[in-house]
Each structure stands twice: as structure tokens, then as C-alpha cells.
């Protein structure tokens, strides 16, 4: 039963990026069936993520509709979410929806967070035509987790999920 409850939770669509499920986004940390019902643990992507309440409601509703009865959703902050937790399936779905998936999250050594001044560790390929390079149009987009870029080959603008 626990596995099935986990499948139900992981199949809930993300309110901000509906092409992804919560499982593919990597925010589901634990699903546990107890005597008082299912307890789901999720973690926010960003501190100010305005979708937490919608996610909570969607999870509780999905579990109820699947016959699991009352559910409780807990939130943990640590360890902090990283875009590395977006699954391979999730990355493919993002690209198919015209959103460039994130590259590997920056690995930090000891010492201060390095100042990048526009230098990227890797280029971002165009999700539409596949051209390997693109330019940034805006550092933030419709949500904090995305930036706006443009492909110099097909001239199309596209969104890119930023690495964190």
C-alpha cells in the first residue's frame, strides 16, 4: 500500500510546471502510510515558492480520490532542493515542452560563492532546434526558477530552468 500511495503522490502535476509531476520534479521526500493515514513529506524548490499550498491541496485530494483517506503533508527544508533531483524523464518532458532543462548544479569547493558575471559553466542548447548555443534575454522569467533565453539559429526565445 505504501508504494501505491507513493505512486499517487509522485504522479500529481506540478502547479507551476504542469508538464512535470511532483515525482519528476524531485520534491517528494517521503510517503508513509501510518495508522492515522498517509504522511507525505515534500521540500520547497525556493524559499518563497508560492505553489506550496496548491501542492499540499493537490496531494491530499489525489490521495483521497485514490482511496487512501486522510493525508497529511509535511515540509522539510533540509537538505535544500537542487535541480539535480529533476529526473531524466522530467528533463525529457521539459525539453519536449520547449523548456531547456537545467545542467548540473554548480559544485562548490571551500570558500566564498564565486562571482560569475555572466560566465556559465556550460552552454544552454535550444530545446526547439537543438542549436548548441543561446543567449540570455532575462535572468528571471515567469517564476524564480527559470530564465529567458534566445536561440541565435532559429531566433526563438525559450525558457531555461536555472541550476540551483
Amino acid at each position: 500500500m505504501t508504494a501505491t500511495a507513493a505512486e499517487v503522490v509522485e504522479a500529481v502535476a506540478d502547479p507551476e510546471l504542469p508538464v512535470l509531476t511532483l515525482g519528476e520534479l524531485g520534491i517528494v521526500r517521503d510517503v508513509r502510510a501510518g495508522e492515522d493515514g498517509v504522511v507525505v513529506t515534500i521540500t520547497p524548490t525556493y524559499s518563497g515558492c508560492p505553489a506550496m499550498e496548491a501542492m499540499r491541496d493537490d496531494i491530499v485530494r489525489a490521495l483521497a480520490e485514490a482511496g487512501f483517506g486522510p493525508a497529511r503533508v509535511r515540509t522539510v527544508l533540509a537538505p535544500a532542493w537542487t535541480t539535480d533531483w529533476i529526473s531524466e524523464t522530467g528533463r525529457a518532458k521539459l525539453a519536449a515542452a520547449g523548456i531547456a532543462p537545467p545542467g548540473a548544479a554548480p559544485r562548490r569547493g571551500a570558500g566564498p560563492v564565486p562571482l560569475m558575471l555572466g560566465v556559465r559553466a556550460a552552454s544552454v542548447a535550444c530545446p526547439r532546434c537543438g542549436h548548441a548555443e543561446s543567449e540570455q534575454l532575462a535572468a528571471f522569467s515567469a517564476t524564480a526558477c527559470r530564465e529567458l533565453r534566445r536561440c541565435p539559429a532559429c531566433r526563438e526565445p525559450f525558457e531555461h530552468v536555472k541550476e540551483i
Partner: protein
Amino acid sequence: MSFDDAYDALTDHDDDSRWAYGTGFADPLAGVPTAAPDGVPPADLAAYCVMLGDDALVMSHRLQQWVTRAPELEDEMALANIGLDLLGQARLLLSRAAEVEGTGNDEDSLAYLRDPAGFRNVRLAERLDEDFAHLIARLLVFATWRLALLDRLTASRDPILAAIGAKGVKEVAYHREYAAGWVVRLGDGTDVSHTRMRAAADAVEPLAGELFAPHELELRLAAAGVAVDPSTLRAEYDSVLREVHRVATLPAPPELQAVAGGSGRDGIHGPELTAILTEMQELPRAVPGGVW
């Protein structure tokens, strides 16, 4: 190192009413280790969370005021997103303060029902921006300082402060890049943009003196392994500012000044904060507990 239900009390999930401002805080933080770490007075920890929370809350409000006034739509989205990140950090910090304090406050009462003298934000956060270059200069100073602070906070003995620090570092790193990118674009731009960016840096950057002057509470909690002594952040801050100025073809950053007229950490504020709170608190004070 994780803690339960950081957001449990931040959301209304007992009914379908939507909050008009803030949130309901209907539940206590069930299962959360509400105690302060061993040997740390709860009132001290709460006061420190209020300091860092107020920095984020007041800066967030100032950023929100730029929405519809920035030079380009893309920058309004950037400033709104940066403000949203800071608002999220503020909510977590004020919730933690209320929980540790245990006197019946919650994030809403702390944000909306305190008078200006109760706020502990640095005065830089409340400063009114004269133009976009002033905003960018202020955001660079604020984000560079806060990034260094949150990074060191990840080693705090308080697991919640450490977790808030770890999440915040990822966010504020983008805020600093955004501000630094604009300083370079304006500084290394036209004669007019260079002149105005330089004037803004000259006006704003000296005010950072306040950010590195430790409050007695910060020193006490830093000694206990909970807080960060802000004076230890100066070397990293100086190195980042120097590099941004160099790339932006601006002269070296000006000397820092001690804050005139008392520190925001002691509750001393200018009329700017009163103006912010008059706007921010109007609805909650007029309709206490209101929902729609």
C-alpha cells in the same frame, strides 16, 4: 539535519478561505523541535531571527515597489522574483522567531502589527532609491553581504537557521549576479550611464558600514555557534565589490561609514521605514484577521 513541517504553520489548510494578507497560522508547528539549542536563551535566538527576517521583509517590500516602475518588463520580473525569494526567507525567519519566543506571536503579527521601533532591519534595507542605479547599487551591497552571511549561517548550531541559510545561499547567489550584471552594464555603458552608476555607488556603498558593525546580540550568539559575526564578512564583501567595480570600469569602492544616528539593529530607523510600514500594514491593521 532536517526539521519537520517548516511550512505547516504558514498555510491555511483547515478550510477553503484564502488569506487576504499573510497566512492563517492555524496550527502550531507540530513535531518541530521548537527549543533553542542547548545554552542559547530563546529570547536571544528569536531576536536574531527577527533581525535577519526584517532585513528580508523590508528589502522585499522595497523591491516590490519597483514593479511597474523598472526600465524594462524583464527587470520588473527579476525584481519581483528576488522580492519573492526574500519574502520566503522572511516568513521562515519570522515564523522561527515566533515559535522560539513562544509568546503567542506569529509571522503575521510580527510583520504586520509591530511599530517601526520594533523592527530590527539594517537601515540600508529601508532606504528609498532615488533611481534605478541607486536600487542596483543597494541590491549589490545587500545581496553580497547577505550571501556571505547566509553561507556562514549554514554552520549554525540551530538546525533551522542552518537550513534557511542553505536554501537562501542558492537564491541570493542569483540576486547578486543580477545586481552585479547591471552595475557592469551601466558602469561600462554610455557616459551618462557610467556617471549615474558612479554617483549611485558613491551614495549607497558607504552606508554598508552598518552591515559589518556587530550588534552585541550577534556577537553573543556567534560565540555560541548560532549566529554570524558580520564583521567576519568584510573580506569577502570587499573582494566582490572590488571585482564588480573593476569590470564595470568604476573607480575602487568608496570607504565605508559608520551609520549616523544609530543602527537599525537597535530599532533606530528613518522615516523611510514608517512609510513602508504604513503601506504594508494598512490592511491588516484595518481588518484584523481578515480573509476572503
